[in-house]
């Protein structure tokens, strides 16, 4: 029987939204205060949803300890208390939460058992969030 298991994690990180493809004026008009030169930070909530058959032996879709370890190794250690703009993944793309969500999905998909990852949702603040389901 297919069920879903979700777990929420916290990362604190800084970023600045700025792209070399736009002029300084265009960057300011596009990104507003998110373009301020020294960056700013957020407490991001990363919600990971995995899906699959409930193992009749354990009653689990995934062992949470194993999920925690993958998320810690691939995502939390990498991004928590870091400047996202300096991460190699954001050398050629702006660290918007859309792009962060996409990259976190890819990092976890690669490390979790095939077909398990259903969705990654990242809440940048209490009032905005982003979701990625692959494709």
């Amino acid at each position, binding site marked *: *029987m297919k*069920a*879903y*298991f979700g*777990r929420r994690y916290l990362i604190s990180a800084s970023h600045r939204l700025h792209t070399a493809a736009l002029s300084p004026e265009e960057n300011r008009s596009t990104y507003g205060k998110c373009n301020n030169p020294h960056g700013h930070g957020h407490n991001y909530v990363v919600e990971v949803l995995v899906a699959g058959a*409930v193992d009749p032996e*354990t*009653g689990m879709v995934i*062992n*949470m300890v194993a999920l925690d370890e993958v998320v810690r190794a691939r995502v939390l250690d990498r991004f928590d208390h870091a400047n996202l703009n300096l991460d190699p993944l954001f050398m050629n793309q702006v660290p918007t939460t859309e792009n962060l969500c996409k990259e976190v999905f890819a990092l976890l998909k690669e490390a979790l058992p095939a077909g398990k990852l259903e969705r990654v949702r990242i809440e940048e603040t209490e009032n905005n969030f982003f979701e990625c389901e692959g494709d």
Partner: protein
Amino acid sequence: MISLTRRATFSASHYYWKPAWTEEKNEQVFGRCANKNGHGHNYTLEVTVAGEVDPVTGFVVDLKWLRDAIDREVLAAWDHRHLNLEVSEFAASETAATIPTTENLAIAAWKRLEPSVLGAGGARLSRVRVYETPEIFAEFRGEA
């Protein structure tokens, strides 16, 4: 099609233990959840039903009716209970017991609620989500 969700809370205790396994294997797979003295949680249950809006009442279902159904079908049996010892889905027999994981709670709550929702006419059960803590949840959408 509109969906609506009602939240309810219940408090219960449980532990994870598979009788066919050794103590070492249980502890290795289930960690601290395998402590046979049990532990407890404040669970949040989210029940989502979906259907068409009734042109007269403007409701998909009456929220008070949904609250009463959740109280009657789920909370009356689970709230302030030891899931392994007192709740039929998980206490069936010591050897064949279903482990009261969050996943299995979501499936069991679905099975308890589905007949009532179908019987009320007009709406169907769409999703049941169970939060074990604010950071951990499982959901069931009736899929095979």
